C-alpha cells in the first residue's frame, strides 16, 4: 500500500467517527483492555477510535489503530463491531481484520461482584497489532517479521471472557479471564486482565465544567497471557502494567490515555495508547425512524 493510501486509511478511521456524531453525553471508564460490567445504554451507539504506539525489538516500531462501534441492543446486551489496522514504520500500513463482540449481563440486579459474559468472533491477520487482549503465548517477537510475512497468517477465533466487576466506595475493580479458540485446529489459549479505577471526585459540581475533578477517572490495568491448554501458566508469556486516565467532557467526548510497560522480556518495552469516543444517544430510534418514517 502506498504512503498516501496509508494516510487516507488513517484519516478515514477518524472521519467516520466525526461524520456520524450527534449530541450526546458519556460517563466512561478509563480502561482500554479490561472491561467492567457496565453495558452501553439501550439504543445508544458509541463510536470510538483507539491508537496504540508500540516499540519492537528486532523489528520496526508500529502504530496500530482500531475503530469501534458499540451499540446497546438492550439493557442486558451490548454488541460491538471493530475494524483494525496498523502501520509498521519503514514498512507498510494494513487493514488487519474485524471483530464482532457481544456482552451479556445475566443478573437483573447489582451485586458485590457482577458477572458479564463476553463472546467475540475475530477474523484478523497475523499482522494485527492492536493488543486489545494478550492471550496464550503471545510475545513481542511474534510481531518482529515484516508485514508481508505476518499478513499471510489468518486467524478465525472465538473468544470467551468472564468479566467480573465490583464497585465499592467510588472504586471500580475488574477481573477478566479470557479463553480463546482458534477455529483452525489450535489449542485453547488463556489470558487475563485486571483493573482498578476511581473518579478524582465523587460528587458532581453544581456547574458544568470541563476541568472539574469528577470528569477525570484514573486507574491502572494489568493484562497478560496464561499459556494454552497444553502449557498453562506464565512460561513464555507477556504481561503489561498500564496506568489509565479518562477525561469525560460535558460536550459528550471521552478521551483516554494509557502508557503501558512490559513486565518481562517477552513483552514489548513500551505501549502508548490513547483513544477518543463519543456516544450518540437514541441512535436506535433514529435508525428505526429512517425506515418507518415519522409518525
Amino acid at each position, binding site marked *: 500500500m502506498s504512503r498516501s493510501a496509508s494516510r487516507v486509511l488513517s484519516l478515514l478511521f477518524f472521519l467516520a467517527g466525526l461524520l456520524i456524531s450527534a449530541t450526546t453525553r458519556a460517563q466512561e471508564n478509563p480502561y482500554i483492555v479490561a472491561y467492567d460490567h457496565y453495558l452501553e445504554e439501550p439504543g445508544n451507539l458509541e463510536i470510538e477510535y483507539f491508537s496504540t504506539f508500540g516499540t519492537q525489538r528486532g523489528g520496526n516500531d508500529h*502504530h496500530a489503530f482500531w475503530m469501534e462501534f458499540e451499540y446497546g441492543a438492550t439493557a442486558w446486551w451490548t454488541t460491538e463491531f471493530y475494524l483494525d489496522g496498523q502501520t509498521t514504520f519503514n514498512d507498510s500500513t494494513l487493514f488487519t481484520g474485524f471483530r464482532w463482540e457481544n456482552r451479556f449481563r445475566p443478573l437483573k440486579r447489582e451485586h458485590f461482584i457482577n458477572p458479564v459474559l463476553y463472546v467475540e468472533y475475530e477474523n484478523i491477520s497475523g499482522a494485527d497489532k492492536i493488543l486489545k487482549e494478550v492471550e496464550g503465548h503471545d510475545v513481542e517477537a511474534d510481531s518482529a517479521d515484516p508485514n508481508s510475512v505476518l499478513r499471510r497468517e489468518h486467524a478465525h477465533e472465538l473468544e470467551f471472557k468472564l468479566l467480573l466487576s465490583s464497585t465499592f466506595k467510588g472504586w471500580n475493580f475488574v477481573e477478566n479471564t479470557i479463553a480463546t479458540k482458534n477455529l483452525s485446529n489450535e489449542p485453547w489459549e488463556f489470558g487475563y486482565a485486571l483493573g482498578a479505577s476511581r473518579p478524582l471526585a465523587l*460528587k458532581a459540581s453544581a*456547574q458544568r465544567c470541563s476541568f472539574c475533578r469528577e470528569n477525570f477517572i484514573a486507574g491502572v490495568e494489568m493484562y497478560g497471557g496464561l499459556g494454552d491448554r497444553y502449557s498453562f501458566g506464565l512460561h513464555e508469556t507477556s504481561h503489561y502494567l498500564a496506568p489509565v486516565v479518562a477525561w469525560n467532557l460535558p460536550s459528550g467526548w471521552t478521551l483516554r490515555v494509557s502508557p503501558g510497560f512490559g513486565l518481562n522480556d517477552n513483552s514489548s518495552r513500551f505501549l502508548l495508547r490513547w483513544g477518543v469516543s463519543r456516544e450518540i444517544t437514541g441512535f436506535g430510534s433514529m435508525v428505526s425512524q429512517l425506515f418507518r418514517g415519522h409518525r
Partner: protein
Amino acid sequence: MRTREVLAPLAAFAAFLSGAVAGSTLPATFGAATSSQKNEKALKYKYQDDALVYAELAKAPEKARAKRNPLASDRDAVAAGANLFDQHCAECHGEVGEGSRKGPSLLKEPVQSAAPGSLFWLLTNGVVRRGMPVWSKLPEPQRWQLVTYIKSLGGPAAPAAAPAAQISPSSGGQTKISQP
C-alpha cells in the same frame, strides 16, 4: 519517514480535540429536533410500561428504603442533580422528567412519594429487563444528587415547566426538596 506516517493521524486528532475541548456540538446527522419538538414527541408517545417500572420501587428492600439521603440538605445537590439528570436521564425520562415512550414519568405520585432510599436503590440496580440500565457507575454521591433533584421535581417550587438545564446552579439549595 516515520514522522510523516505519524503526522496524518495526529493532525486529524488535533482537529478532533480542538472541537472536543471547546465543547463544540457537531450538526446532528439524524433527525435533529428542537427541544419543543422533543417535548411534543414525548407527550405523544408515552412509555407503555409505567406501572411495571413503578412497581419495581416497591421491591426495594427495607434496609435500602430506610437509607437517608445524605445530600438532602446540600445546597448544591439540586443543581448538580439537574446537570446529571440532563446528561444521563433526560434522554428516556424527558427533559423535566415528564416521561417519554422510552421511560416513565418521574413526576407522578409513585415516584414522588417513594422514599429517597427506594429511588437510590432503583438507580443503583436499574430495571434491566425493562430497559433501564444500572447506574452504579455513577459514584454514590452523584446518585444521591440525582435523587435530590428528582424529588425536587414534585415540590411546589418544582421546575415542571423549565428544562432541567435551566435550573440555575446558584439557586441550588433554594429549590424546595419535597420529602415523602
